[in-house]
């Protein structure tokens, strides 16, 4: 690095809390941070700039392009062409992507009520039992969270196996007729929800259920007893207390858990890739699956995949802002 620039930066790093920094202290703080900032630039800030650029080009790494990141030349600038193609075009990739947007939102829409709806009652029940019982239950509920997603899909293939799988067998035991296939029959659609999508959602809920339960336990522990005492003095019964005191106080946590769940559903890859690979008939194709396939499997146009990434980024960005807002608000009741 340029020596003059170094000195200027060293001067810029001003004073220490305990008075002026000595030369050695300044050197230390400077050289300590420089590699980290370079890393952040190379692996975070530059890539986001790069992916935006890529989305404006028809690009594939196989073609020799211009001098700057291989863009230009044989990888021509197409402006918003990739975006226009994605949202109005008739190529297969674009049509599948539009279907994937709907599927991804359907997945989030299914996952949020199922995750919150299972975790909240369990958290309330857990808060009511003895500490020792509680900690062993918590320990077990958390197991799927730490189990790697790949092992999760192998386990669940046995649950969903047609005919001889655990779920089909359980259904037969109680006298129901299981569907011919849980993951690969495109004709199984209930209330507009493909069975395969529902099946993947249930695996997702199984994985994240322990995490959401912990979120709610933490929130329940923060609700002061004075509120319910006050409600009781005012003559409220148990259910009134629950609906009018506990739920409103938990509202922010429910909202936070929902936002976190939506963020994580948008980033879900392994369950779809290994349980259904987007099938049957693209019924479980998601945005991220489309990004992966177009960038790394077909690699005809990485620019198109980059445009898909940007679409995903915009949604995630808005959700992350909402998440930070929710976190920053005071947690005092």
């Amino acid at each position, binding site marked *: 690095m340029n020596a003059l620039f170094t000195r200027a930066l060293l001067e810029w790093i001003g004073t220490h809390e305990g008075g002026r*920094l000595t030369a050695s*202290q*300044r050197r230390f703080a400077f050289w300590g941070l420089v590699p*980290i900032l370079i890393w952040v630039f190379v692996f975070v*800030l530059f890539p986001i700039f790069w992916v935006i650029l890529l989305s404006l080009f028809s690009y594939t790494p196989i073609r020799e392009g211009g001098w700057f990141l291989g863009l230009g030349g044989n990888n021509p600038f197409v402006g918003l062409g990739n975006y226009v193609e994605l949202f109005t075009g008739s190529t297969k990739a674009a049509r599948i992507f539009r279907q994937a947007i709907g599927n991804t939102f359907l997945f989030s829409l299914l996952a949020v009520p199922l995750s919150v709806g299972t975790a909240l009652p369990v958290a309330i*029940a857990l808060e009511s039992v003895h500490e020792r019982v509680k900690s062993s239950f918590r320990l077990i509920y958390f197991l799927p969270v730490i189990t790697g997603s790949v092992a999760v899909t192998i386990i669940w293939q046995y649950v969903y196996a047609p005919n001889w799988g*655990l779920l089909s067998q359980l259904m037969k035991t109680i006298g129901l007729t299981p569907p011919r296939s849980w993951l690969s029959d495109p004709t199984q659609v209930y209330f507009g929800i493909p069975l395969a999508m529902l099946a993947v959602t249930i695996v997702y809920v*199984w994985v994240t259920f322990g995490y959401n339960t912990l979120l709610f336990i933490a929130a329940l522990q923060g609700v002061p007893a004075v509120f319910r005492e006050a409600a009781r003095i005012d003559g409220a019964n148990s259910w009134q207390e629950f609906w009018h005191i506990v739920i409103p106080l938990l509202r922010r946590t429910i909202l936070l858990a929902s936002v976190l769940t939506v963020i994580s559903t948008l980033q879900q890859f392994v369950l779809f890739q290994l349980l259904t690979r987007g099938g049957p008939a693209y019924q479980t194709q998601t945005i991220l699956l489309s990004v*992966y396939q177009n960038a790394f499997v077909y690699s005809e146009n990485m620019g198109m995949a980059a445009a898909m990434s940007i679409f995903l980024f915009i949604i995630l960005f808005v959700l992350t802002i909402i998440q930070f807002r929710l976190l920053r608000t005071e947690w005092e009741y």
Partner: protein
Amino acid sequence: MLKKFHPFYLLSRSAIYIILTAGLVFTLLPFVYVFLASFKTNAELLRVPPTFIPEKPIIENYTTVLSDSQISLTRIFYNSGMVAIVRTLLTLLISSFAGYIFARYRFTGKNLFFGMILAQLMIPFQVVMIPIYLLTVKMGLIDTLWALIIPMLIDAYGIFVAKQFVEGLPGEVMEAARIDGASEFGIYWRIVLPQLGPALASLGIFTFMASWNDYLWPLIIITSPEKRTIPLLLVWYSTQHGANQGLVLAASILTLIPIFVVYFLAQRWIVEQSTQSAFK
């Protein structure tokens, strides 16, 4: 006075235990079923209707997987273990070091630098994986284990946590050490780092697990069979042995053992700290 809230009154004792047991069955049944199935013969595995408890349990599935020269399980465990350990140690050192500097040194541009690092929280890896892949190719790191470590080294959340934690440490000890002639790095290494234990423990466990379980990035980066990590091996193995499911189950269970051991040893930090990340 703020007392802890107890929703005792909401549910009867039996309703509580029905809910908890339902959750338990939902969580454990798939694990137990697959664990038991890994001791079945192939014929029994495919039988309709299936058995739950193996009729005559065998351990051949495990011995076959362990002695399968085609996959060299030790090599794969070494890959996953090395990547996870190196990535975790470096992440912890970098996070604590950066956290210390941000907490203890006041300098112009500090907020800008810190903001640059926190920008990572807004940019999920999945969004930038295409340019990071291209970068990895340019750096010549493609199909190396380093490619699984280097792009993941800096964790904005870890730096954030370390900074908060160092800010909470008493400054007098550090000042005294400085007067006694300790170097700046010496203060970090001998005074700050040892006190960061609890904060780093949970960060370390989560980094380790994220690395151990990661599938998408290794799938993109690793092509050589001998550089596979455990998730890649499991997927490959289950497609290779579609007809011999007992082997796939045994292999899956073997790969779960290390992570479960870590979990049970470190559960205090995992369970208690995991939700903190959502709240702070």
